[in-house]
Structures are given as C-alpha cells and as structure tokens.
C-alpha cells in the first residue's frame, strides 16, 4: 500500500429508506481528489457528510454513481482506506497497543515482526509511548482520539477519512491535534478527507474546502486554500478565506426545525443491527 491514491467521486446519489419513503441524502456529488491531497468538507449538521464518508469507506454500499480509487470501483471496506470517527470507538477491553494492533489483524503484507515494529512506530507517531499499556478509560479524549488515528494509520492506508475527529475535544486539544494531524499528513504523504463543522479547522488543514448544503446534501462550492503551511490563523489571508467559506453558509436556507426532525430519523434504526445480514457476513 503506502502510496497515496486518486479518489474520484462521480455523480454520486444516495437515498435512505425511511419507512416506505425514500429520503434523498446526497445528490449529484462529484469530486476528484489528487493523491496526497488534503480535502476538508464543511456543512451544517444533517447535510450528509457522515453518509458520504460511510460510502467512501464502504460501510454503505447502496448508491448510484461511481466511487473510484485509482480508477477502480470500491467494493466494501478495505484496509487501503482508513477512517477515524467522531467518537474514538476504541475497544475498552484492549490496551492502547492492542487497540492499534486491531488495525493490523488482517494485514497479510507484514510479517509478525514488522507488525510489532509498525505498532511501536505508530504509538510514537501519536506521542503515546508512555501509555502503550493503558486502557482507554485511563486516557483523555484527545489521547483516545490519537489512538484511533494510530489504529487507522497503522495499515498505511492510501486514503484516510476523518469524520469530525476533534469535534468533541476542547479548543486547546483540538488546536494541538490539528497541528499533529498536519505533521502526520506531511510525513505519510497520504490522501486525507476531513469532515468538520469547524470552518477554521477546515481552512487550516485543507488544500481545498468543500462546502456542502443540505436537503439533499449537495456540493455548494469548492474553495482553494492557496496558503503555505504551516498556516497562521490570524493572518489576513487566512481570515479572508475563512470569511469566504462562512459567507457560503450565510445564504444557505437551513431551519432549526428541519435539523431537529433529522436527528430523530437518525436514531430510528436501533437494535436491529446484529443480524448476520446487517453485518454483511
């Protein structure tokens, strides 16, 4: 793996079935992402950002259109695509080291020794050497999220998807981890797609910022961020781009009631997940 991939999304449409109604969630999404590019996606809650990442990672496979990785249609999940969710989703019964090793469980390219080395490397990459044997309950939110990042990176995926990974963290930790993520991105040279509702974060990290609008989720505008790294958040140019992104939000009709009803829909399918067919096994 190790090299970065071109990711092409062509005329992607996605609906969710709610009762007997088909709810359009994504409409005609087209986006071409260069190898090693960092793309930020911003949009209000409910506009389909998580759904888009679920399609890209392969957890959802009902859609129209094409998702091509280096020209090949993606099928299901694959170790060449990694993901970090908003919640760390670590296994609480495993230590930091064991959690990261979950990433390599089905990696057939590395020998046992290479795996051990890679795990150590990634523990160091995210700065958790002293916590290798700690359990998740002993970690702060920021540390847990770093473990989740290491778990996603340990396979050296071509693409890393991040779904509001720092959304639940305090401002200091968030700023620190944004910097860390940038360092890791530069070091690994892989393609990254970051979903966030934090416009500053999007501009700070992205080569491009994709602005989405809701109901159904569409791409409203793609804004280039032609600023050298490491970026200064207070610089005039940075602020100007941030303003430009924020202006896109200002004229998006987006009422509060609509958002509340969407959340209830989101919670509807509970408990029905453990069937063998839902697991796709």
């Amino acid at each position, binding site marked *: 793996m190790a090299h970065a991939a071109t990711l092409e999304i062509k005329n992607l449409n996605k609906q969710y079935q709610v009762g007997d109604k088909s709810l359009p969630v994504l409409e005609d999404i087209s986006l071409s992402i260069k190898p090693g590019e960092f793309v930020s996606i911003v949009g209000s809650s409910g506009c389909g950002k998580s759904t888009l990442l679920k399609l890209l990672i392969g957890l959802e496979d009902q859609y129209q259109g094409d998702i091509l990785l280096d020209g090949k249609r993606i099928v299901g999940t694959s170790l060449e695509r990694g993901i970090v969710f908003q919640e760390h989703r670590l296994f609480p019964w*495993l230590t930091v080291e064991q959690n990261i090793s979950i990433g390599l*469980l089905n990696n057939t390219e590395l020998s046992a020794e290479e795996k051990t080395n890679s795990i150590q490397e990634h523990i160091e990459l995210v700065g958790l050497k002293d916590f290798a044997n700690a*359990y998740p309950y002993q970690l702060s939110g920021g540390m847990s999220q770093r473990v989740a990042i290491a778990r996603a990176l340990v396979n050296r995926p071509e693409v890393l998807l991040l779904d509001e990974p720092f959304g639940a963290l305090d401002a200091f930790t968030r700023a620190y981890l944004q910097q860390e993520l940038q360092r890791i991105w530069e070091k690994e040279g892989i393609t990254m797609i970051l979903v966030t509702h934090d416009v500053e974060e999007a501009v700070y990290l992205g080569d491009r910022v994709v602005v989405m609008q809701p109901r159904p989720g569409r791409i409203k505008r793609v804004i280039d961020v032609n600023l050298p790294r490491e970026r200064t958040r207070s610089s005039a140019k940075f602020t100007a781009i941030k303003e430009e992104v924020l202006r896109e939000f200002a004229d998006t009709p987006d009422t509060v009631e609509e958002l509340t009803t969407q959340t209830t829909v989101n919670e509807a399918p509970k408990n029905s997940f453990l069937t063998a067919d839902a697991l796709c096994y």
Partner: protein
Amino acid sequence: MSLNLKNLRGAVLPLALLLVWYAVTALGLVNTKLIVPPEKVLQVAYKFVMRGNFLESIEASLFRDLSGFLLGSVAGVLLGVLMGLSRWTERFVGPSFNTLKQISLFAWLPLISTWLGTGDAAKILFVALSAFYPVALNTFEGVRGVSKAQLEVARVYAFTYKQLITKLILPSASPQILTGLHLGLIYAWMATIGAEFLLISSGSGLGDTVIKGRAAFNIELIVFGMLTIGLIGAIFNHIATRIERRLLVWRGA
C-alpha cells in the same frame, strides 16, 4: 487480601450472634434441645470431620455442584451467544425459552426424577438447569448490547466471522457473561443442596447429611451442616467476585 479494619467490620455481626447464641444457651434461657449450644455443634463437627465421612459428603456435593455448573454454564453461554447473534435462533428459541423460564426450577424435580431416578445424574441435571438460566439470559443480553459503532469498526478492519465473535462480541459481552456465571455459580450451589434434600438417595452429600440429622433429631448436625453450606456458598461468591474484578480491570471500576 490484607486484614484491614474494613474486612474485620464484616466479622462483627457473626461474632455478636455467636456470643448471643452462647449466652442464651449457657444461661439456660432456651430449650437446649431445640437450640443447641455452640460447643455441642463444635463437638459434632469435630467428630464428623475426624470420621472422614464429612469431607466425603462435602466432596460429593462439590462434585455435583461443579459438574452441573460446568454443563449448565457451557450450554448457557452457547445458547446465549447463538440467540444474541441470530434473529432466527432468537425468533424460534426465544419464546420457548421465556416460557420455560417461568417454570419454577424446583418444578422440574418430579420430571427429572421420573426420567433419571434420584442418583447423581438427576441431581447434576437439576444443578445444570439452574445454572443454565442466568448464564444464558445474561449472555444473550451482553451479546445484544454490542454497539453498532464497534461493529462498524470490525467491518472497517475486515474482521472474519470468527474474529467478530472472539475479538469483539465475547469481550464486549464479558461483563454480562461474568455476571451470569457468578449468578449461575450461586444458583448451582443452592440447587445442589435442594436436590440433595428432595431427591433422597443412598449417596452422601451435605444436603443428605442435614436431612439425616433431621431424621435422627440431631440438631447439632443440622446446624453444623447449615453453617458449612453457608460457608461454601460464601467462598464461591468471594472467588467469583475476585475473578470478575480481575478480568474486568479494563472497566476501571
């Protein structure tokens, strides 16, 4: 475990009761035929332990208890996991399971003794049955409780079905499985004694000993048997608690 004040606090009540027991019998406040003095119980205990058939009866009870527990809990974990994993099993087995659950455990005894008589096989089956319910029920709930978010993680890392069970579902359900096993262990012990009371056979066992004591109006023996039964139950409980705590360190309780 260190012997600190907290551990000693638990000993206060039994010691006080022992003292009261001793006092009322020594002062002749009660009929000592019905409430025997503690020193007589000690004498009987000494005689019994020395004769060797007391240890034998403990051994016989423990054998029934542990074999029944083993059978019942293995079956319970298996059925619990199966029901938790598959809609199909739950739909077909679930209702029968819930109906059977309503039958008091002791109501099984007539049927079991008709099939298997009153020997060890019948007793072990009864013990197994009593351990089975809490284990199956808790395992089922534990498996059902596996979070959707973690199942997605398993899919992202391409878990095989076997990995899904051994690396996610079982560990995730382990707190509830252990709760089930703990309950099962206690139920099994109660069932062992109950079976020995009710399925009277020529075999030995703690329950049999107590029943024989009743027949001979030997209250010392009854009291001694009761104390032993309680003590063994308490030891089981203690061991189970420690194992649970050890295995669940990751919860950071």
